């Protein structure tokens, strides 16, 4: 029904940036069709294909060009230079004359505009304004218009007492309802909703969302919102817009639950969920201003996995098959496309069926006849993606640290395989091995206390560089300072020459962290990074770790025995019990709808849990086989 091809929209700079309402015949006819330096490109080669009956959700940060896209479809950006093509039912819209646009607007395509103050004319009673689009189409049918208007107003929840009220006596929610009624009065073929609920309070929001769910059923709709929840609720399919470019398209539920593109992932991470306890992480870096839009992939200035090519070549959208979720939309083919040179968020670390067992000494073996081995890890598979925080939670002895050491390449598994960047981790040698050990760092349990007491801070932090033979003393010194700054430690000469026994527990832990980060690894496996510290220092270290994770963009496996911490920190939580991962998923899901009985006991209150453990309801792993 709607085909948008290579749509590029740029505004002339001279217009002192105000969004002036432009007279239709004011459109610059004599502008050269190439974007000059005095043009601000707001939409850049947008492609979108909307089928009849589909509901599309357009998401993206503020300023990404969502409203501009909508207004372009309405022919409301007369002053802008528009290239490409918009085909609506086979008719090219960009060639429309102002008259044609006037005919189309409010009849075949209707839009509910983004709320920005007085949306309704203050001097006309409500119902008159609702009727106007209909009367424009059928000037003589005042009675029908009146009837339809009343019906629609009632349908959106405004009864007779509202009909002749003036806009200044209406609340924001009521105005929004009225605007929806107004857009529907001509029964448009395409309905555009620009931020339909963003400016409303929570109650009104959910009311209007319910209303919209009801109204949009069976229609062709574009829903624009920076609110992922709204899009999830209303849309079948979604398109992710960033700096005027579409980076990901696909079924709404899939894209927003299992984002494939680094930007979508960052957007989802930054989005607060009501259900979740997860700590918010903003998208690192700043949203680029209009006049400094990056070349190449628009996201490369903030992407944690960008390559050289990203900064000069724009990635073409390609199909990806990562639809692990069952997609339920009645329409659409489940196709998913992303524009990324690296085919989306990279997989950094993956292990398959990892088993680790330790030989028991005689005394223990005797008590368990016929079984001389203890299986600490029994068949674990997990995947860690670029920039992800995987929180591994489980009680002590469940095999977390053992698994951590295997993943870090410190120990060899008894069975199973670990892949680092698709390469088998335990079969690497030479340069590859060196590269791997630099990129995969582990922060051991109690690593702060384990620091050698014979080395001072500087020596401690620069040691990994020395071992890896990276840089000369001067560049190492610089790297050390940088690492210490990341972890908020002083870089004074005095501190650099301090020995560990003079430092506090929190400082030691930070030094250990700096030691792990000085190599700028891609993956950090942190085993109980804060367990031995008091609560306040603990919180600080975790905050620091997560902040660094977000800023530096490394992937993090956070091993902890506290579910609360795991849920707050992780993008994904894995619950480990008796050497197995018994449950895995986004924290909100794991916390609220635990499937495995062990997780259920964890999510109960602490006292309950203690009771259970005290009762020995949970068999100790060592006693089991």
């Amino acid at each position, binding site marked *: 029904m709607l085909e948008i091809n290579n749509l590029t929209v740029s505004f002339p700079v001279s217009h002192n940036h105000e969004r002036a*309402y432009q007279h239709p015949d004011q459109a610059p006819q004599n502008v050269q069709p190439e974007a000059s330096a005095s043009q601000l490109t707001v939409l850049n080669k947008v492609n979108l294909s909307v089928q009849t009956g589909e509901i599309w959700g357009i998401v993206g940060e503020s300023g990404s060009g969502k409203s501009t896209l909508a207004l372009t479809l309405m022919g409301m950006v007369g002053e802008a230079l528009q290239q490409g093509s918009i085909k609506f039912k086979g008719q090219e819209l960009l060639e429309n004359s102002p008259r044609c646009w006037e005919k189309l607007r*409010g009849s075949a395509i209707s839009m509910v505009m983004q709320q920005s103050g007085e949306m309704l004319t203050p001097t006309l009673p409500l119902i008159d304004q609702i009727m106007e689009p209909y009367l424009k189409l059928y000037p003589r049918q005042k009675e029908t218009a009146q009837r339809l208007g009343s019906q629609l107003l009632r349908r959106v929840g405004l009864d007779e007492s509202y009909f002749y009220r003036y806009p200044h006596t209406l609340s924001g929610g009521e105005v929004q309802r009225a605007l929806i009624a107004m857009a529907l009065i001509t029964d448009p073929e395409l309905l555009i909703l620009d931020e339909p609920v963003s400016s409303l309070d929570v109650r009104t929001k959910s009311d209007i969302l319910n209303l919209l769910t009801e109204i949009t059923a069976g229609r062709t709709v574009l829903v624009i919102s920076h609110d992922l929840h709204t899009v999830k609720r209303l849309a079948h399919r979604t398109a992710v817009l960033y700096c005027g470019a579409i980076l990901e398209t696909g079924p709404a539920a899939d894209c927003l639950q299992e984002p494939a593109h680094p930007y979508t992932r960052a957007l989802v991470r930054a989005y607060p969920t009501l259900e979740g306890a997860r700590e918010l992480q903003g998208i690192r870096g700043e949203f680029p201003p209009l006049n400094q839009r990056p070349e190449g992939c628009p996201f490369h200035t903030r992407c944690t996995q960008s390559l050289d090519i990203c900064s000069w070549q724009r990635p073409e959208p390609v199909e990806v098959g990562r639809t692990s979720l069952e997609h339920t939309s009645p329409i659409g083919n489940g196709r998913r496309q992303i524009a990324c040179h690296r085919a989306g968020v990279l997989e950094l670390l993956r292990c398959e069926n990892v088993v680790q067992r330790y030989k028991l000494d005689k005394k223990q073996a005797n008590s368990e006849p016929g079984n001389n081995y203890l299986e600490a890890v029994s068949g674990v598979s997990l995947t860690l993606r670029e920039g992800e925080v995987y929180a591994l939670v489980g009680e002590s002895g469940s095999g977390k640290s053992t698994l951590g050491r295997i993943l870090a390449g410190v120990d060899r598994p008894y069975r199973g395989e670990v892949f680092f960047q698709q390469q088998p981790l335990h079969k690497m040698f030479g340069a590859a091995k060196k590269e791997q050990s630099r990129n995969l760092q582990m922060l051991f349990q109690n690593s702060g206390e384990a620091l050698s007491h014979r080395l001072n801070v500087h020596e401690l932090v620069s040691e990994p560089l020395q071992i890896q033979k990276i840089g000369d003393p001067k560049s190492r010194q610089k790297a050390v300072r940088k690492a210490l700054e990341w972890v908020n430690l002083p870089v004074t000469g005095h501190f650099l020459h301090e020995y560990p026994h003079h430092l506090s527990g929190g400082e030691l832990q930070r030094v250990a962290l700096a030691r792990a980060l000085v190599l700028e690894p891609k993956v950090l496996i942190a085993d109980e990074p804060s367990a031995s510290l008091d609560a306040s220092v603990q919180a600080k270290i975790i905050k620091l770790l997560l902040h660094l994770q977000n800023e530096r963009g490394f992937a993090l496996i956070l091993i902890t025995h506290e579910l609360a911490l795991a849920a707050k920190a992780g993008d994904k939580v894995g619950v480990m019990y008796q050497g197995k991962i018994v449950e895995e998923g986004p924290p909100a899901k794991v916390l609220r709808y635990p499937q495995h009985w062990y997780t259920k006991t964890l999510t109960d209150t602490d006292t309950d849990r203690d009771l259970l453990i005290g009762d020995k309801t949970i068999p100790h792993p060592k006693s089991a086989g």
Partner: protein
Amino acid sequence: MRKRLGDYILAFLIIIMLNFFLPRLMPGDAISALYGDALMEMSPQTEAYLLERYGLDKPLGEQFGLYISNLAQGDLGYSYYFRAPVGQVLVGALPWTLSLIAISLLISALAGIIWGVEAAWRRGRKFDRASLVTIMLLNGVPGFVLGILLLLIFGFYMPWFPISGGASPYMDYSGWEQLWDYLQHLFLPALTLTLVQLPRNFMLMRSSLLAVKEKPYIYTARNKGLRDRMVRYRHAARSALAPVITRLGMSIGLLFTSVLFVEIIFAYPGLGNLFYLALQHHDYPTIHGCLLLITVCVLLFNLLADLLNQKIDPRLRELDARQLLERA
């Protein structure tokens, strides 16, 4: 609105008080302050009669009572220059002035509003720039110069219109002829007054519309596919009108000063001319009467503007016009 009405009544009372007390509180006796030069021509009997009639030798309180009751009967004193009661003199002059004001106000408001809307809608484009230049030029010419120019051009060089008076004297016109004669005499003074007011009305409407033009509801109106003219007048101009009308109401006082010189230039027999003559001849009772009538007129026009505004703009039924001005 009831509150606003109270304001008007209060203002009216204050004006009456001022009119009563000011001359009486001046140094010297009240009768010479009230009648001035005319006293010299008066016989002692008339003087005594006046003293008696207006109780000028009585205490102030009593005088005020008498004053009010006289006022209620339309008695504003006696003009020795015109040899008639002041009330009668004023009533003779008032219709001329009122028709002058009404016609020029109406035309200058309509023209200013439409012109302002069209210019603002095309902000920064040729039409707007040309309009601005024209308006600036017009505004630069002082009102009386404009009047004299029109008088010279259309009265002397191209004698299409009569140059003085409100009607041709000693002619026995009837019906339509009479009306035509009135209109001919009215034309030049009314044109001058219209041109004097036009720049302000234009600028007011233009700037008010410029503010409204950026309002979200204009986008809404356009977005629902309305014709441009509909958006411009039904949605934009209507919403932009209230501040303009309020300002118009507030500037009625100024308009009366313009009326003064226009009537003098064209010897138009209205209040302005009357006032001028009274001033020249130190006819104090007439002067006071004129002032009182003019201030009452100004108040009435303000009231009218208020009522009109409330009809046009529902927001004003609760808000004060001035608040709206501040918001805009």
